[in-house]
């Protein structure tokens, strides 16, 4: 009988997130080197002449066209907000001081020549003071929202150092899995991802892709016990369990996106 993904939803209320964490499944799964090789082989079959990066958003959008990336207060807030909260937790700074430190650090990188063109540091260094204040305001909003979520959890929470990246060997493909908070207890590990807006029909598939990429990015291949998506705007939580069946489904979704990109590229090439 084929396994199906179990999605569990709940409204945000005091204790709801902690309850999801305390009831995490306790089964442990690990990715083997054979599974890594199999994934690489399949990505190689649908590779492109150029390098590509796949993430959960592309899975949710079924590789649909999106507008080209540009830095804006909205696109910068997560990077800055997460960094500020990490600093706040480790150095016990006030939210505003932590955010100032993060922005000064970015500007220093740009001023000392350690940032490349198009990077966040380089973009920030070109802004006026009013624009920088707007970026700070948006990033502080994100940081406050994330802190509110972190403080609603009874267990020990850490802000993820970075997103999860997995470079698929010889397939010129990088997988990027987003993660905002990590809750590790003695027996379980929970990833938390904070999202804007309201969850769509493919939100679960997106979370599953993030969970899969996170597992592949770990050297020991250990799969997190669950991933929880938090939509503060909609007051909703969505949980995906970290079973091997979910991981396979997540890998299939990523391959499907790669396949769609591959077909679209060669159709364009034939047409031109």
């Amino acid at each position, binding site marked *: 009988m084929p396994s199906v993904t179990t999605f569990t939803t709940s*409204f945000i209320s005091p204790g709801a997130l902690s309850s999801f964490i305390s009831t995490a499944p306790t089964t442990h799964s690990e990715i083997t080197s054979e599974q890594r090789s199999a994934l690489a082989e399949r990505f190689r079959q649908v590779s492109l002449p150029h390098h590509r990066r796949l993430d959960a958003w592309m899975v949710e959008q079924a590789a649909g066209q999106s507008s080209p990336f540009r830095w804006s207060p909205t696109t910068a807030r997560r990077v800055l907000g997460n960094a500020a909260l990490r600093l706040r937790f480790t150095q016990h700074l006030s939210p505003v001081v932590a955010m100032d430190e993060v922005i000064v650090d970015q500007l220093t990188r740009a001023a000392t020549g350690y940032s490349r063109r198009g990077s966040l540091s380089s973009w920030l260094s070109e802004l006026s003071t009013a624009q920088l204040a707007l970026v700070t305001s948006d990033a502080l909003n994100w940081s406050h929202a994330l*802190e509110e979520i972190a403080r609603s959890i009874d267990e020990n929470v850490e802000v993820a150092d970075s997103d999860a990246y997995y470079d698929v060997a010889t397939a010129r493909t990088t997988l990027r899995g987003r993660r905002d908070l990590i809750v590790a207890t003695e027996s379980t590990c929970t990833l938390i991802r904070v999202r804007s807006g*309201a969850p769509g029909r493919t939100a679960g598939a997106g979370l599953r892709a993030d969970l899969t990429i996170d597992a592949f990015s770990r050297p020991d291949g250990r799969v997190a016990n669950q991933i929880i998506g938090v939509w503060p705007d909609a007051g909703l939580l969505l949980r995906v369990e970290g079973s091997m069946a979910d991981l396979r489904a997540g890998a299939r979704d990523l391959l499907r996106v790669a396949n769609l990109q591959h077909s679209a590229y060669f159709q364009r090439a034939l047409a031109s």
Partner: protein
Amino acid sequence: MTSALDSVTVLQALRGNRAERPAPRTADAAHLRAALEDSLYAIVGPQHFFNPLVLRTQELRELPLDFPAPDYSLARVRGILMHHALRLLSVGYSFTNPFEDLTSAWRCEVGESDLLVFVDHLDAEDRAKFATEIAAHTATLRHGLGTFGSGWSLRSTVRVANLLCSGAVALRDTIDLSIDTGDDGDCTTVLLDITTAPLDENSEKVLRFHALNQTLRTGVTPLRSAVLSTATGEQLVAEVDAALLTQAVADVLEAAERKCRV
């Protein structure tokens, strides 16, 4: 509900007497959701499952059906710029030239937009008049707001998307400023909306809608909700209690009925 002009700043009114703050109320959200879902389903029926009925603050206002949409008008630009002003003030920004500062911040956010092009093409006379108007609204906002506490958590432009009846109805809202004054154990969240128009009876509906949406979104009832007019400096502040939330539910049901009839 209290309405005041220049007596106390809106932040002082929202903060109130710290000793009289109640404990956080966490039971309201479930009751409100149940009340809304039961009544809304009877109004919207099953036809909206693939095309949700979206209710925003605009739908709560009782405007004539043929009310013209103020596209590309300076009123819309003024509203956008004043929201940006609040966002900048919330991080302690001090304005040198409000119009230039705010349009530059807006440009940074949206990149290119038709409204920005409209502003860029104003002639020198209109531009100067509009810049003075923006400076006056900004001054009223700064004066009416008062000072933020150093330990408060401020969140500007809080977007809300509460889905009801399995997604057949969406309550969409943007709360201009949500402030958590941060005393553990007390109800400390207060909400603020700003408008560039004078206050009227619709302002009360907006204030109630914000309180309802915040309750549904977080599961915790906020302490107070307020509206501040940057045109007149008037403010309307309300304690969020069961009666206010019940009235907010009635407003939503009325708006849903009106929208379904159209």
